[in-house]
């Protein structure tokens, strides 16, 4: 008789690990929440959460840090998904942070609310007394992330101290914190961009339409294609043209670029990604281009 060798596919292993992480949080923290941007990583996280607690509902709310500069397609998608799952959504608004004077809006053509989000995020965590916050970050995204723990400790100022991280062994996570501190939890730490797409295909989960190739009015800046929209300040020397594009990440419209593409199905997207030679952040995120250590600096301050 043939001996079974009990192999498990890569997606099953990654999913089982993410489910374990989510249950660990639900069991050991009082007030967890899941950051949901409507982007593909948070969609995958939400899917895993749905599975981890089934047939019970997801036992924590979602939080969206709304820059006010979102793609309308993504907000529409977010609201529909939240209604389907019957979960509570907390919206932390960057506009509200500006209106109450917590942050000052940048001005000029390259003004972006990207960095302001950190304050709004930390205020949202504090106001709701969240003690564990799920983020969709992956270690393959960026150098500074490669060393971040799955359970990443934040002090009472929301700061990350990369030199003083808790060792993480086996599947044992240290969840202890004092009041006012919190843990950022990254259940997708070990996933790559391709794993995320393979999972989306396997699960057949819906994603916002802007991930698929579509015709859009865009203009070029620093080699990136930005959407022509009222919230994006464009100069006269930046002519608008129509192009067939899709987005690899969904963020703030002012700093998230599109890539030219004809991929209109998940299969085609996977083929395209497998062939591309530029990381999703390098291709489409002006925020990460600022300097080689841009992400590390923002993360220390408390960014996602």
């Amino acid at each position, binding site marked *: 008789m043939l001996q079974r*060798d*009990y*192999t*498990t*596919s*890569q997606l*099953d*292993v*990654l*999913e*089982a*690990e993410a*489910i*374990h992480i989510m*249950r*660990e949080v*639900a*069991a050991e923290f009082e007030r967890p929440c899941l950051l949901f941007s409507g982007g593909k990583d948070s969609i995958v996280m939400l899917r895993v959460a*749905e*599975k*981890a*607690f*089934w*047939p*019970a*509902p997801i036992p924590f709310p979602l939080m969206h840090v709304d820059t006010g500069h979102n793609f309308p397609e993504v907000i529409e998608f977010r609201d529909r998904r939240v209604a389907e799952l019957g979960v509570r959504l907390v919206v932390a608004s960057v506009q509200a942070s500006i209106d109450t004077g917590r942050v000052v809006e940048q001005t000029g053509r390259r003004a972006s609310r990207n960095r302001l989000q950190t304050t709004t995020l930390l205020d949202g965590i504090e106001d709701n007394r969240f003690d564990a916050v799920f983020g969709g970050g992956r*270690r*393959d995204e960026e*150098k*500074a992330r*490669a*060393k971040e723990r799955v359970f990443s400790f934040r002090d009472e100022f929301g700061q990350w101290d*990369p*030199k003083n*991280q*808790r*060792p*993480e*062994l*086996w*599947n*044992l996570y*240290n969840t*202890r*914190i*004092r009041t006012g501190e919190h843990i950022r939890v990254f259940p997708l*730490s*070990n996933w*790559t961009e*391709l*794993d995320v797409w393979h999972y989306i295909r396997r699960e057949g989960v819906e994603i916002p339409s802007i991930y698929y190739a579509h015709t859009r009015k865009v203009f070029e800046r620093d080699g990136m294609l930005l959407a022509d929209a009222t919230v994006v300040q464009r100069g006269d020397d930046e002519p608008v043209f129509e192009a067939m594009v899709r987005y690899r990440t969904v963020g703030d419209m002012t700093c998230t670029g599109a890539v030219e593409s004809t991929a209109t199905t998940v299969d085609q997207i996977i083929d395209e990604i497998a062939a*591309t*030679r*530029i*990381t999703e952040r*390098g*291709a489409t995120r002006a925020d990460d281009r600022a300097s*080689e*250590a841009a992400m*590390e600096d923002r993360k220390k301050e408390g960014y996602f």
Partner: protein
Amino acid sequence: MDILRFATAGSVDDGKSTLIGRLLFDSKAIFEDQLEAVERTSRDRGTEYTDLSLLTDGLRAEREQGITIDVAYRYFATPRRKFIIADTPGHIQYTRNMVTGASTADLAIILIDARKGVLEQSRRHAFLATLLRVPHLVLAVNKMDLVDYSEERFEEIREEFTAFASKLNATDLTFVPISALHGDNVVARSENMPWYGGSSLLHHLENVHIASDRNLVDVRFPVQYVIRPHSATSQELHDYRGYAGQVAGGVLKAGDEVMHLPSGLTTTIKAIDTFEGRVEEAFSPMSVTLRLDDDIDISRGDMICRPNNQPKAAQEIEAMICWMADGLKLQPRTKLVIKHTTRTARALVRDLHYRLDVNTLHRDETATSLGLNEIGRVSLRTTQPLFVDEYARNRLTGGFILIDEATNGTVGAGMIIDSH
């Protein structure tokens, strides 16, 4: 496609970063923008060639000092396997980082500089990998180009290391002569070493058999979370009570007789649930939800096993401990929090039997404490019984972490040798 997790260890300048850079580069896991950034930095520093090692030096402080000082995780895939690399620094002052990286590794690559041969640190790396029970070891003898691709030199190193490894009960040991810089025997077999009959390093990583490294014999299901939907609308869901967790050992099947610990009560598995529906069986590392035939009071931290194959319910634990704290020392009477599977208790250090010199394996029985990065054999007493196996038998039910209640830091990692 499955996943292989491996750790890399080497002393400074043995070529670890170059090797990882090459594996990532040749498997196309490096993107153009990452490569450009590295090329730019190499130029700025006046390096003539593109320093692939820069790809893996993550944080700014490390970039500035030019050394790797924490575990960093890297990813690449070939059509056969997905790989997760735990890139760990090699200095003795980073023993805790190597221990961390090795804890989840299926395989460890130990780099040796062919010119220098087996050094004290190579022995230390091999010892730590076997202490953490990494099932497969690969000795990558690097910089073969600098010893004229000499078979004799390679054999010398192989013999010396084999003699040492026999003292460690290393299970599976493979030697590969490589040049990380030039790519010899990394991805493809090298024409410079026709005398070498084995496979290239990547070929070995793609094919090493790991499925049977898991414990598929002793059923261990640490209860992680109790799922109770409390549905008001659906009668079936109203009474639903499922025990969620990740299988830590053995194969569970619907209909199996099982025992609950600590109660010792037995019942049968009614169903194994997943979001997709019921499954017939569950094994490590699956995350599933069990429903049982009888109403037993079960909560997080409890263990489900088989009546004729139980872990020990122990409060006296003998373990090898790697101490990871900067300030605090481990010594008799130290009180700590212990986290083992899904159970958390308090632990008191009763005795430190010896401190191990990780370079010479000498046991210092006069030692009175363990400091940062030191390893020793310790007796602990816990406030509650833990359901344990020997670490050698099951890494998931034999490993634990220690937490300092004052700082909440993770201060130690333990591997159970014996218990009662």
